[in-house]
């Protein structure tokens, strides 16, 4: 029984580490949804851009891995800003007939385009060498240095974002727009610029997640699919648009997945079904609370 218990706690620790990365994806999505009311269906492709940028810089250009990580973040930021300007701006300006449907279709199309672009450019499944060599042993569990780095960087980025949103003027402006767009606009905040910043920041966070996970899960054109889906599950759990809710949702998802694997006897199947638990939880939550675990039921006028 002791063996089971230590295995259980090892899985728990593992869950917390992986949920830091999930949180990075989910908070990025939440930031975009909170301000633009858009679910970014191309979020996985932002993750992919981060992963590939890091991979090419490290293996082809010989850039220092940590510098590559920073450049990947900038690449995500720039890409997000460009995508918002080129494809989502007409929506913010009210030039689109059905904004909700347009947003779903256009971000989906960006996702299709980016993924297929990578299939033409570089479809191989490869990854950069690990950022940190070495392992840490905790009980029966060995945690790779990269996983520890990934969760540490994620937590740092999240903390920086929270500081930015709650303690600085531009961050307050972003929150103001998310709470009441016309009012914020009346007070002199340019909501269009805030849209641009939120999309850029959200995609930057996905790119950082992608760069961090590239040595662990490898780069491929569809590398962003699963992380993005996890992000969607989490924001629904966390009630769409609440940053704190999506952080809690990430921890919950990490727990469901790891504990689900504990109780699955067949190890190969446990691995395959890891990704299913979160989805089942999503379906169950939507069945019982269609507006998310922490979401407020929207009043219809």
């Amino acid at each position, binding site marked *: 029984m002791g063996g089971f218990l230590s295995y259980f706690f090892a899985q728990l620790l593992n869950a917390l580490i992986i949920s830091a990365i999930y949180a990075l994806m989910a908070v990025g999505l939440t930031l975009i949804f909170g301000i633009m009311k858009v*679910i970014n*269906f191309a979020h996985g492709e932002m993750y992919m851009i981060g992963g590939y940028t890091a991979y090419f810089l490290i293996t082809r250009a010989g850039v220092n891995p940590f510098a590559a990580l920073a450049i990947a973040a900038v690449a995500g930021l720039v890409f997000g800003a460009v995508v918002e300007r*080129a*494809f989502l701006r*007409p929506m913010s300006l009210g030039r*689109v*007939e*059905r904004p*909700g*449907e*347009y947003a*779903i*279709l*256009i971000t*989906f*199309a*960006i996702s*299709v*385009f*980016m*993924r*297929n*672009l990578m*299939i*033409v*450019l*570089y*479809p*191989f499944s490869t990854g950069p060498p690990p950022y940190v060599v070495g392992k840490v042993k905790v009980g029966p569990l060995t945690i790779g240095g990269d996983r520890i780095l990934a969760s540490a960087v994620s937590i740092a980025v999240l903390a920086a974002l929270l500081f930015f949103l709650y303690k600085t003027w531009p961050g307050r402006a972003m929150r103001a727009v998310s709470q009441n767009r016309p009012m914020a606009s009346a007070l002199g905040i340019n909501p269009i610029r805030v849209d641009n910043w939120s999309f850029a920041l959200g995609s930057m966070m996905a790119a950082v997640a992608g760069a961090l996970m590239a040595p662990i899960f490898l780069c491929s*054109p*569809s590398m962003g*699919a699963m992380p993005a*889906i996890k992000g*969607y*599950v989490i924001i*629904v759990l966390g009630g769409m648009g609440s940053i704190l809710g999506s952080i809690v949702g990430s921890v919950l998802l990490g727990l469901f997945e790891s504990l689900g694997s504990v109780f699955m006897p067949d190890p190969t*199947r446990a691995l*395959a*079904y890891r*990704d*299913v638990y979160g*989805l*089942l939880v*999503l*379906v169950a939550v*939507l*069945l019982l609370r*269609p507006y998310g675990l922490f979401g407020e039921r929207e009043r*219809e006028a």
Partner: protein
Amino acid sequence: MSLAEAFRAQLKPRKLALPIAVFTLLASAPFTIGEGYWLHVLIFAMYYAVLAQFWNLEAGYTGQFSFAYMAYSGIGAYTSALTVIHLKISPALGFLLGALVAMVAGLFLGYLTLRMRAVYLALTTIAFSEIMRIVLTAEYWLTRGALGLSVPPLLSTPSKAPYFYIILGIFAASVVVVHVIVNSKYGLFIRAIREDEHAASCMGVNTVRYRVMVTTIGALFSGLVGAFYAHYVLLISPNMIVFSEMAKVICMSVVGGMETIYGPIIGAFFIQFLDEYLRTMNPVINEFFKRTINFTAKGEWRLLVFGAILLATIRLTPQGLIAPLVSRVAKRRGR
């Protein structure tokens, strides 16, 4: 207009002339283009046309962005294949069973997503498709996983023509069904739901019934063509439910023109033929880029072309590429 009235209203010679001419032309294909490769392409075009039409009925007309259509098709395919293999029933019965199980899945998903707005619905249907794909891959003992499951053929003849007529029949039925629904009062109801569900329900539209109805009918037909796919291609794998397949169906609908009846059909034929053309052109395009910018592509170009077309269409001409052309021609003819 009730369904019967809507059906009768379409039975006017002026309205029927063009569709009948097109279908006669299509039905003569095995004699004109032979039973080779191009008939195969036509069969696939019709498979996608059915999916694109019902996706359009759900997303274009009702405003429910479902990403579950390939999952319904996969459910139909695997149900039919597994029952035919293990229970030794005839493939024809397997077809019906596949369609029925897919329909039940659609009914379930329809009720599950009932209280959701567009975005939640899209996310839930993505989750549903992923669950299906993972389960089909993981349950190796039953489905042979990613290796693929060999399926017995529907007919004992090697000829493609009978398959062609079966899918033509399903395709024709789907055109009639979508046409009648859209032109009946139910067509008005679902469009009202799309514009404003709350208002529609206040005006006495039973939104629950019609939303579930659209999903269920779509799932039924998708399951049916999925079962056809299984017994025609003879090898099915969880790759049926993969992202790029759903993207292709959506691309067909969007390029043809959402919220039109003929748009997804023309879009499906256009994209499927473009797909085959680009497949054969791939070496030529590769050669061109190698010579001009010394770049060697690692993968196929056709998927990128679809992505670019989809992106450009949604951004620049949200009504689609084909529907505006058709309405312009129709207007000129009417004048």
